[in-house]
């Protein structure tokens, strides 16, 4: 059931009111749209009900999950999206909210079945923007092949009127035989990433400082399930997958090295970074390897599978390094002039350098 701040039972005697609040592009979300009354009812009927493929889900008190085949198991993931700005080159928070959760499921080898959508909207938010975001959500969810089965909406007074937060939880189905996790990582495994790093972060940072036009860059925000299914369906042996969101490739690799207890060796010069991202990082003192992506993942698999993996993932994928045999649990970044750097987690907030 799609819920709002309070339950609402429309009196049967009240005639249906034309949805004035949502008829104009300049109309804004009011506190009453989450207040359990008429406006909330209109919001659900006009904007949220169309997101449900199966209308029964919108009316039920709790979501009914699909039947699970005997050779499969369910996996679940949840993620909250607080991206600023809400619209960025290559996507918006609606698309991101589907990609983020579906990509988490994809890293287990799963295909998404069902999703929840919780919206926290600031009072005064433009309906025009809300519709654009919900449209992105719907089209991306359709692309993912999943359906919305439950949701919730809250409207709260915030300092800024252009804020909206989304939480999505996703349930996916994975074959019982598919085991992708850090404990599967073996010495000698290849480390492959599916494309260049840092686009999503730099896109957002550029949009925040109004330098998007100069950067001419699109976020990599996209669904990863087709690439992952491509690998699994080709019968390639994969040991572990990890999407490269917050903290980026380097942090993901540090986590995997620690979890597996093995040493990862990555060749710095192989790490693909496009020119606008590299330039931006140099100016600001960032490292692309630590920046967030929303359409990139690392694949750890036996060395013998490298060619097949690169064929499936396409020309942007790069074999950047290998898992070593030492049980140090660290990541070593190899420079091609003969030194190596032990990678450490960064502080956690991107702070531009001073000079």
């Amino acid at each position, binding site marked *: 059931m799609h819920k709002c701040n309070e339950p609402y039972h429309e009196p049967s005697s009240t005639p249906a009111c034309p949805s004035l609040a949502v008829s104009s592009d300049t109309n804004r979300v009011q506190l009453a749209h989450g207040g359990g009354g008429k406006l909330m009812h209109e919001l659900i009927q006009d904007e949220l009900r169309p997101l449900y493929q199966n209308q029964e889900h919108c009316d039920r008190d709790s979501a009914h999950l699909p039947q699970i085949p005997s050779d499969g198991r369910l996996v679940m993931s949840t993620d909250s999206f607080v991206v600023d700005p809400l619209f960025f080159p290559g996507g918006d928070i609606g698309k991101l909210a589907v990609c983020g959760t579906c990509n988490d499921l994809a890293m287990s080898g799963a295909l998404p079945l069902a999703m929840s959508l919780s919206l926290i909207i600031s009072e005064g938010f433009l309906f025009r923007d809300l519709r654009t975001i919900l449209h992105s959500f719907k089209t991306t969810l359709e692309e993912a092949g999943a359906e919305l089965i439950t949701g919730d909406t809250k409207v709260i007074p915030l300092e800024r009127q252009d804020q909206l937060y989304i939480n999505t939880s996703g349930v996916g189905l994975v074959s019982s035989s598919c085991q992708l996790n850090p404990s599967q990582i073996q010495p000698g495994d290849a480390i492959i990433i599916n494309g260049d790093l840092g686009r999503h972060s730099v896109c957002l940072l550029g949009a925040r400082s109004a330098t998007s036009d100069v950067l001419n860059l699109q976020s990599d925000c996209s669904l990863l399930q087709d690439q992952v299914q491509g690998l699994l369906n080709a019968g390639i042996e994969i040991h572990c997958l990890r999407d490269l969101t917050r903290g980026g490739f380097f942090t993901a690799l540090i986590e995997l090295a620690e979890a597996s207890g093995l040493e990862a060796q990555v*060749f710095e010069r192989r790490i693909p970074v496009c020119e606008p991202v590299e330039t931006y990082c140099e100016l*600001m003192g960032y490292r692309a390897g630590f920046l967030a992506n929303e359409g990139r993942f690392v694949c750890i698999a036996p060395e013998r599978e490298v060619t097949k993996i690169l064929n499936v993932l396409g020309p942007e994928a790069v074999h950047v390094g290998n898992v070593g045999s030492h049980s140090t649990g660290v990541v070593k970044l190899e420079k091609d*002039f*003969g*030194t190596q750097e032990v990678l450490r987690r960064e502080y956690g907030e991107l702070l531009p350098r001073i000079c």
Partner: protein
Amino acid sequence: MKHLSEYRHAPSIIALTRSIKAKVKTPLRLLEVCGGQTQSIRRNGLDALLNGSVTFVHGPGCPVCVTPEAAIDAACHLAKNKSVVLCSYGDMLRVPGSSESLLEVRAAGGDVRVIRSPMEAAELAILNPQREVILFAIGFETTAPANAATLMLAKQKKLKNFSTLVAQVRVPPILSQLFQSKELQIDGLLAAGHVCAIDGEEPYTHLAAKHRVPIVITGFEPVDILLGVSRCIDSIQAHQFEVNNAYKRVADSRGNRSARFIVEQVFEITDSEWRGLGVVPKGGLQLREGFHTMDAMIRFGLNQGRPPRSPTGQASHSQTFKSASRCLAADILKGRLSPPDCPHFGVSCTPSTPLGAPMVSTEGACAAYHNFGVPKPSSLAHSEDTSSATFQTRKRPANAQVQ
């Protein structure tokens, strides 16, 4: 970016390294005073590459490490004022004053904004006429021109709600002080390329001659740094106590006269406290009288009853961090002690549990060693993470090419 690939070019780095090692007969000690160079040396393992031929001595080159505690205290105090928007360069947020950092003040509700350019602070003042916007103007000669230009703009636009908290420092006076110290044993200086891009060679020519120290203006990429090292060795061996410029692609020998002109319009030279180092004669900048209306200390009455300056850096440090009396930051900043030789390094002092500013700031020497590994872990047998505290030279991998 062609400048990056050219100046990170492995064959050039290898050739320069070989050439340096071949011409060094006895190990040399070179001082650098720039957090960017410290980071580059450590990140790329240049010290390990030179394998004892050259030891890099890291001076007070981290701008936020030397910003006095009293200035951070004033910034924290101002940021707690609900009418104030305090604008600061990013790394400054993490370094604590006597009791807290700007990050902590922000978490408690203070309006602290990270800026990439000081002009962003002026824009904020224009867009928010009901708020008091304060620019925390810190740094070396590199930040002074943009900070000064922002103040000139604010004055020109008659911004009534814009002011600045100034903690600008100057490099040549601290170098003079370090060179006079008998404790600092160095053979040459790699001068910070971007500071020299503003100042030019002139302030350094006098220093080189007076203290008989060869000085090479040096950039930041591995090839830049090794080129600076190579030129410095040539000067040392030829007993040429003069300034050489190995960063001509950015630093003109005359510096940037327009930038200096702007700085001179807004700031005047003053004695200044450097955190950990005490008061350095002519070591800083203060606002000229014509800009006093934009002095946040005056506007918010902080110049009355301001905490007295501590006479030495050690005293200043003792109030800063928990257990700070143990911190040897003053010795680190003066180049007397290399971070891994500090008994607290990696044991009781890490970026998560810092005893002093050089372990907090990403540009600090201690953080640079901690984040990018230490060449000699043997003295750190009890380090919290000795397994990762290595930075070794290694043979070039046979499969270094992307397939």
